[in-house]
Structure formats: structure tokens, C-alpha cells
């Protein structure tokens, strides 16, 4: 527990990090309790009140179908954050497993797995995600899958480095000497020791995952309308940009705030967990 308290103390040293942590917490709470906070449903239409500018009744205005943008942002955020967080956790877990198995066995196994990863890494991540999403078809699960697959190789490489040096440590050798099964060595002795960089990687990659999901939806390959999702909302608002800019600005700013707070918190977590990088 002292480890955690130490981490927390270091994290709270930076005022910007604390501010962004609170901001992010508020955003998450708003999104989680969207059912209670949102003044309207995500698909409640009122044809008589279309394209309204932001006002007291509609905090962020209404869109071309007369739906309340603020409510849609809240529900859309639920979608974006959910997919983003699940995807980055999944990416890191799978990537770490592949990377540590590869490094632990070394030699031929390592060579084959890493060359395989090289192939994936030869395609720019967004392009790979687009190709996968195009093949699998649209939908929440497929979008998440596309983001996860395109992110795994990078994570595998990051996890591989520290495991390479861990492998020859005495306690691993000791574990091997008493005939511990390999999978147990990896899960019980290796993974816990690379936990710190893994946590840092996960927090840092959530914002990237959210951007990728939103990007896919923006291109029409991710979450489909009428489901609210920030990227999809931006894409829908595009054609009304000139006359009703709030249709783009409102979801965009929501995304900007989320990503900003996530990035600052991610940097803070990295500095707090990894004293080597600290000034």
C-alpha cells in the first residue's frame, strides 16, 4: 500500500495533473450518469426545434434533426470512452502477453513473433485499422477489434524490452530451477515486474484509442448513426459547419477536453511511476 501512497503523492505534486484528473473524473461521471444528467434522450427528435443555437434549454443547441446536442454528447461520450478504454486495456494485455512470451523464449520463437509484428508495423496504424474495419464491416465490436489489432504490435515491442533483461534475473532462474511451469513464470514473475510500464502505456494509449475510434466513425467505418459517437457527430455536423457551427464545435470541444485531460493525466502517471524520467 505504501507503494500506492507514494505514487499518489508524486502524482498530486503537479497541479495541472490534479486539475486534469478532477476534470477527467467529472467527465467520466457525467458520461456514466448520462441517464440522469442528459435533459433529453439521445434520439429524441423535435422537428419544430431544428438547428437551434445554444440556449438555456439546449446547452449546446440542437442538430438538423432537432435532437439536443448536449444529451447526444453525453451518450456519445459513453460510447467513445467505453470503446477507448476497453480497446486500450485489451491492446496492452494482449500486446504484453505476446511481447513477454516472445522475449522469454527468445531465439527462434522471438525471431518469428517479432518478424510477424514487423509486418503489422509496416502499415501505418490508422491505415491498418481502416483496412480491418472495412473488411469486418461497421459496428461497435468490429471498430474496437480494428483498433485493438492495429495497436498490438507496438505494445508487444514495448513489453519485450524489459522482459529481455528480466529473463536472466536470478529469481527467474530460481523459479525455473524448481520446475515452475512456464506460463506461471510469465504470469506470476514476469508480468508483475513490468506492470509499471504497462499501466503507463495503458493510460497513455486511451486517448489514442479514442481518437482512432472517432476517426473511424468520422470516415463512416465505425459507430453508425443514429448512434451518438463524437467522431460520427463531427462527421454529421460537417455539412452544416458554415451556418450551424455548434454541431461540430460542441462534440469537438468535448473530445478535446477529454483527450487533453487524459494526456496530462497519462504524462503525470508516467512521471509518478517512472522516476527515471522525472526531472
Amino acid at each position, binding site marked *: 500500500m505504501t507503494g500506492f501512497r507514494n505514487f499518489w503523492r508524486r502524482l498530486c505534486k503537479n497541479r495541472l495533473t490534479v486539475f486534469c484528473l478532477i476534470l477527467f473524473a467529472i467527465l467520466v461521471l457525467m458520461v456514466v450518469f448520462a441517464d440522469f444528467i442528459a435533459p433529453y434522450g439521445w434520439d429524441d427528435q423535435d422537428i419544430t426545434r431544428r438547428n437551434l443555437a445554444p440556449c438555456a434549454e439546449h446547452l449546446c443547441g440542437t442538430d438538423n434533426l432537432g435532437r439536443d446536442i448536449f444529451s447526444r454528447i453525453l451518450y456519445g461520450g459513453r460510447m467513445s470512452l467505453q470503446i477507448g478504454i476497453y480497446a486500450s486495456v485489451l491492446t496492452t494485455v494482449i500486446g504484453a502477453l505476446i511481447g513477454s512470451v516472445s522475449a522469454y523464449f527468445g531465439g527462434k520463437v522471438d525471431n518469428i513473433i517479432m*518478424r*510477424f509484428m*514487423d*509486418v*503489422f508495423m*509496416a*502499415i*501505418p*496504424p*490508422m*491505415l491498418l485499422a*481502416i*483496412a*480491418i474495419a*472495412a*473488411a*469486418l*464491416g461497421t459496428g461497435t465490436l468490429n471498430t474496437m477489434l480494428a483498433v485493438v489489432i492495429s495497436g498490438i504490435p507496438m505494445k508487444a*515491442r*514495448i513489453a519485450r*524490452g524489459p522482459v529481455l533483461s528480466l529473463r536472466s534475473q536470478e529469481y527467474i532462474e530460481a523459479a525455473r530451477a524448481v520446475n515452475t511451469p512456464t506460463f506461471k513464470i510469465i504470469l506470476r514473475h514476469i508480468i508483475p515486474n513490468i506492470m509499471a510500464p504497462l499501466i503507463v502505456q495503458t493510460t497513455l494509449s486511451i*486517448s489514442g484509442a479514442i*481518437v482512432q475510434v*472517432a*476517426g473511424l466513425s*468520422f*470516415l*463512416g*467505418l465505425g459507430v453508425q448513426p443514429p448512434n451518438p459517437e463524437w*467522431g460520427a457527430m*463531427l*462527421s454529421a455536423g*460537417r455539412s452544416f*459547419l*458554415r451556418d450551424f*457551427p455548434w454541431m*461540430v*464545435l460542441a462534440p*469537438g470541444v468535448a*473530445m*478535446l477536453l477529454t*483527450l*487533453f485531460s*487524459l*494526456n*496530462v493525466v497519462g504524462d503525470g502517471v508516467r512521471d509518478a511511476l517512472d522516476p527515471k524520467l522525472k*526531472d
Partner: protein
Amino acid sequence: MLKFIVKRILTMIPVMLGVSLLVFVILEMAPGDAAESILGEYADEQNLEALRDEMGLNDPLLVQWGRYVSDIVLKGDLGTSYKTGMSVTQSIFERYPTTMLMAFLGVIVTALLGITTGIISAVKQYSIWDNLATVFGMIGVSMPSFFSGLVLVFIFAQKLQWLPASGNYGWSYYILPVLTISLTSCATQMRMTRSSMLEVMRQDYIRTARAKGQTERKIILHHQLRNALISIITVIGTQAGILLGGTMIVEQIFAIPGVGKLLMDSISYRDYPMVRGGVLLLALSFSIVNLLVDLVYAAVDPRIRSQFSSGQKRRNTLRGKERSV
């Protein structure tokens, strides 16, 4: 050095073969097949089967892939578009220069703006400029291109009417798209330059240089920047990948007829030969950029250069890469 270049190019061949197989397998998962996209939804089974036979779609996947690769290598033929019936190679290469020009300008803007602001903010650490740059950097990193692009269009094309919003009829049409793709990478570049400059600043040799009375300018440019360059170049390399992947979004926003737009259109028509060719070409461009980055490493860092001429070059270059990741 020449030996290294040749070797490095040779290692690209299996990777590109792998990429082509990967793209093949991914698109194979897509619903429907070529025969269906050509003959349409309501074609009867007999015609479909005949066309499948003719196109070799009933062959095992690996055989189809082998034919595809040998066509590329021997004839430079990427197949025929299902939609237009035109050669994929020709359609893609018509649009390739536009995309490359945009990505290239993006890299230049990123490097110039990102590195200069990064240096200034590292040299004047904790000054007002540094704080401003840091906050802008953080905002820039958090601003996805599809949002910043729309904001730029709204301000400069629609409200101020200084620049065109879409199309591609001259140099002024490139300004907004290039700004859009380079904004995020600029911020990343700035942050990276700043942190690596700061890291170098505390080194003993900088203190030594200062102690022997070297001018500040020389210290910054010759001692600090040179040593920070490796990580700066790494970022340029990764950003080039992001720029190439990001062209899809930017070309879509600004209606620029490049490879990215072609890819997105082909995806919506399920024109898979075109998608395959486009992805392959962009991946190849990305690999070439990475190759160039590796060569530039050697050019700026004599330590890396000397490894190429000595025995254990490969292992050390890999280590150099990992350090910077």
C-alpha cells in the same frame, strides 16, 4: 555503409511480402466476393460461379496471393478495379503525387515549426514562451485532425474567406490540409524536442563546453541539438507514418483527389483490388520513410555509423531503436 543500405533494403522484401499477404487475408474476411461486386447482388449462382472460375477465385488463398505478387513483381500490375475496370496501378499512381506532396509538406512544416519551438522552449525553460508552448503542445496533441481540420475550415475558409475549403486547383488549396495534418505532429515534435534537449542539457559535456567559454549559440546548436537529434528524427519517422495514415481523413475533409480519398471511395464501393493496391503502396512508402530515417540516424550519429562498419551492427541498430521508442 553501402553494405548496410543494401542489407536494409533486402530486409524490406520479406516484410513487404508479409504486408501483401496480410492485406490479402484481411480483405478476404470481407463479406461478398469479387464476382458478387462485379455482377451485382441479384446475379444468379451459375454466372457467379462461372466468373469465379474465370477469375481464379476458387483457388486456395495462397495460390491467389502468389499470382497477385508475381503479377506485381513481373508486370507491375496491381489488378483491375471492379468498379471502373481500369488498371489499379494507373489509377493509384495518378493520385500518388498529390498525397506524397501533402505528406512531404506536412513533414517539413512539422519539422521546422516543431523543432524550433521545441528548442526555444527548452532553452528558455519555465519562461512565458515555454509555458505557452507547453500548453499549446498539449492542446495540439489532444486535437484530432478531423476536428482541427473542420475548425480551420470554419475560421479561414468560411468566416474570413482567406483560403479555399476544398478541392485541389493550386498551391493555396494545400495550405489548410497541410496545416491540419501537421498540427498534431507539430505538437508531438515540439514536446519531444523540448524533452530531449532538456535531457541533454544536464550532461557533463554541456557543462564542460560552457566552462571552456563556448558561446551559448554554439552550445545549443552544436552540442545540445546534435545530441538530441536522434530522438527528434525518430519522431519525424513515426509522424511520417501518422501523416500517411492521416491522409485518408484529411483528403476526405478537403476533398483532395489523392490516394487516401481513392481508398475511402473504393472501400465504400467494395472495390477490393483498389483498396489492396492503395494500402500496399502507402505501406511501402512508410517502409521507405523508415529506411531513410535509419540512414539519417547513421548520418547524424557517428556512434551508429561506426557500428555499421564493425561486426555487430544489426543488434546495435535495433538497440538504438528501442532506446528511442
